[in-house]
């Protein structure tokens, strides 16, 4: 029987600032950024020839010999395996796991990026005299490796996690662009609440740092072109922001039914108290200008958590202590998300810290939401909110409490107990989760 309450008992991530939870958190609190010129191909002529990359990642360093099975797995899958292994061990599940069918996986993992050179070659070679020769295409694809091709399918990441952690319960993968891993965490929470699993591995992973992934966003003019100064290119809420910086990585949390966690004596990190999901239903390229979709997602998450966004505690402090923004650093997102925060918190809006760690990590696309959720868990644990880096001059159309450049230690004010994390996807999916300090 489900207790109806869902808690987080393990977290793990792979980020451009590192893979171990606490050292990365320390770097975020210090306001360190992780951008640099593209390492995997020559993009020195590109307007966006930089990104926030996971450098020197070797799965063998993370999970030992088990990595041998994953030589052909996608980069995204390998990130997820590393993050999940950390989360699983932190949750202490090796010694006290439930039956396989009571453990599920819900990811917002992106497509794998495998073997782009063969892929591009298979498209280039058949094209001659303004026509596409299918015979030549057939010859080119006959050299494809079946396994590597399949590893591109996004649900293969959740397949590999299920195999590696013997999770035979519900297994789903959603792809709602930049909202995906927050949505995955939210839906996984609902699966546990309903009693359909005791433990869910949830989160996401993604890497679009390859020529076609970068091309897609460059053509949309969504990314920063601050090529002379990549380290300061991700500038959420700043007047000079000019787009997001592509990142990559993974974030995995272990969600667990509270009674189940208690029975096995697990240490509870935080409670996943609320989830809200809406669609803008507006345009595929633009966010609804009044931000009602984002506001609806936040309000849904807070309502489920039973928290009044306009309420204050006995000391007059707002009940929500941090809104971890979607905060991409595009002109449109940051303006409209700020408006949504005003809609939700009303007169309290400028007293609720509203920051973006994408200023430091870049935008991890489908993995962003889960990584940002883990940051909320760490904020609750430490009482500190990381800054929005690179925030020299707050854009007045944003103009909230963006915690510029210096972390804020809230321990003297009573710590951090309630956080909201936002993720909004291209095309209008909006997802928010509310995470709360666990109190039995």
């Amino acid at each position, binding site marked *: 029987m489900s207790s109806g309450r869902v808690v987080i008992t393990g977290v793990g991530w792979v980020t451009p600032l590192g893979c171990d939870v606490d050292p990365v958190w320390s770097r975020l609190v210090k306001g360190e950024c992780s951008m640099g010129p593209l390492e995997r191909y020559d*993009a020195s002529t590109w307007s966006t020839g930089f990104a926030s990359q996971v450098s020197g990642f070797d799965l063998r360093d993370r999970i030992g010999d088990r990595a041998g099975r994953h030589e052909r797995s996608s980069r995204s899958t390998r990130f997820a395996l590393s993050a999940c292994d950390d989360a699983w061990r932190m949750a202490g599940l090796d010694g006290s796991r439930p039956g396989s069918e009571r453990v*599920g996986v819900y990811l917002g993992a992106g497509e794998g990026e495998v073997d782009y050179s063969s892929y591009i070659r298979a498209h280039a070679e058949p094209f001659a005299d303004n026509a*596409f020769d299918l015979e030549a295409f057939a010859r080119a694809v006959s050299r494809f490796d079946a396994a590597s091709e399949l590893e591109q399918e996004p649900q293969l990441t959740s397949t590999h996690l299920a195999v590696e952690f013997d999770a035979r319960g519900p297994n789903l993968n959603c*792809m709602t662009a930049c909202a995906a891993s927050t949505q995955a965490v939210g839906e996984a929470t609902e699966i546990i609440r309903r009693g359909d699993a005791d433990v869910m591995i949830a989160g996401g992973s993604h890497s679009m740092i390859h020529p076609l992934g970068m091309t897609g966003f460059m053509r949309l003019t969504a990314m920063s072109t601050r090529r002379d100064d990549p380290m300061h290119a991700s500038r959420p809420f700043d007047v000079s922001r000019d787009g997001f910086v592509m990142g990559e990585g993974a974030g995995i949390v272990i969600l667990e039914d509270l009674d189940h966690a208690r029975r096995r004596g697990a240490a509870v990190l935080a409670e996943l108290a609320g989830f809200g999901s809406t669609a803008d239903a507006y345009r595929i*390229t633009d966010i609804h200008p009044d931000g009602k979709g984002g506001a609806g997602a936040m309000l849904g998450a807070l309502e489920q958590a039973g928290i009044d966004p306009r309420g204050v505690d006995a000391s007059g402090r707002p009940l929500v202590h941090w809104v971890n923004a979607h905060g991409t650093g595009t002109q449109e997102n940051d303006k409209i998300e700020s408006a949504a925060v005003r809609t939700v918190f009303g007169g309290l809006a400028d007293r609720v810290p509203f920051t973006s760690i994408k200023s430091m990590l870049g935008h991890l696309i489908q993995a962003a939401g889960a990584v940002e959720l883990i940051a909320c868990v760490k904020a609750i644990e430490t009482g500190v909110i990381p800054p929005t880096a690179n925030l020299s001059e707050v854009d007045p159309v944003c103009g909230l409490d963006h915690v510029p450049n210096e972390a804020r230690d809230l321990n003297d004010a009573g710590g951090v107990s309630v956080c909201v994390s936002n993720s909004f996807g291209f095309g209008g999916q909006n997802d928010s989760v509310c995470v709360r300090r666990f109190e039995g």
Partner: protein
Amino acid sequence: MDRAVVITGIGPICAAGAGADAVWSAVCAGRSGLGPIGSFDASALGMALGGEVAGLKIRDLVPKGYRKATKVMARDIELAVAAARLAVEDAGLTTRGSDGGAQGHAIDGVRTGCQIGAGQISADPVELGRAVSVSMTEAGLLDTREWGTEGEGSGGAMDNLPPLWLLKYLPNMLACHVTIIHGCEGPSNTIMGAEAGALQSIGESLRVIERGDADICFTGGAESRLNPMGLVRMRLAGRAGEVPAGADPACVVRPYDGSSVGVIGEGGGMLILEESGSAAARGARVYARVSGFGCGMDTRPITPGLDGLGDADEDVGLTRAIRAALDDAGIGAGEIDAVAPMAAGMPVLDRRELGSIRTALGRDGFETITLTPFAGNMLAGHGGVTSAVASMAIREQRLPARLNTGGASVAGACGARDAALGHVLVCSGSYGGQAAALVLSRAS
């Protein structure tokens, strides 16, 4: 507290036809829609046969003000958008996307969700080939310096791709276009679970309505792998085989028969799910109740790159999904009157699937609804189209014709016939190992 969920509209589009009546009449008459692929010459790939949707003119199926957006719709998106329109019209509902004169009950957008199963969408090979072919090194690699050279006029070949190129191929764009056209502002999701994806989406819609987060959901799936890269990938995934030259298209796919060859089709199957009380209040026609949903995972999937399962005779994820769906519906295995499985027509897959159904139901000789001989394996669209046909079967209390179906445990080919259908099981595994099952029940 318990909110029951019913199907009030169906929009199937596949090689056998477009719309509830056309598809139903084809499957009852035993008319297969499989044939040579017409949109390009796939014979070089050894896969000339497919289940192609003919005559889909997407511009005519969207509101006038939305026609421009059809330029950024890959075929998968077109199928989802078209199927959603058919479903909402069939449900007798109107949305902001309905034609001016349309009659019906107007939806409340804030209370309307959308969950769609989708697949990886392949880039148009001609468009991409044209762009990259001028930017290759002598070694046959992309010349990235040239490809991305910055600057108006002197720009690199990257600029040969249209600005919105990426948006044609993002899998979430199926649901995005549907929500935008119809004004669905409730929870929206895109689930990637290959052949199980549409069933997972319908299951999630069921839960969203049950828990009160929406009263209506557009749900189902759509996918088209009828393009060069899509076909190649599905062949590599063991979802389709080489069709012998001169074979009769209507006889190639033979579910549960060792001589069968799988054929890829394209399809979109969208349903309207509605909370039963509000459906009753508006006097909606009800096809069936969605009474049970279950998921499972075989941690030994049979994709070529993963640890192999070559001769396994059961998909344990599918077995669990069926049992979970039966439990959720609160019925025993003996109460299932017909099964609408994937029936891919690839012998190794069919054997596993059949093993699971026999184990979960504890018997042989069950009735089946198998669509692959009519329309091919529609991947993420398959569960949507199958659920639509199963809904129709329950409403009509009639089973469609079985084409080519055979094997030791499954009844052979026969024509359409009346049948008492209280509960129909719709189920599928997938090439990633994800499995899902639904129980659709006659509405009381």
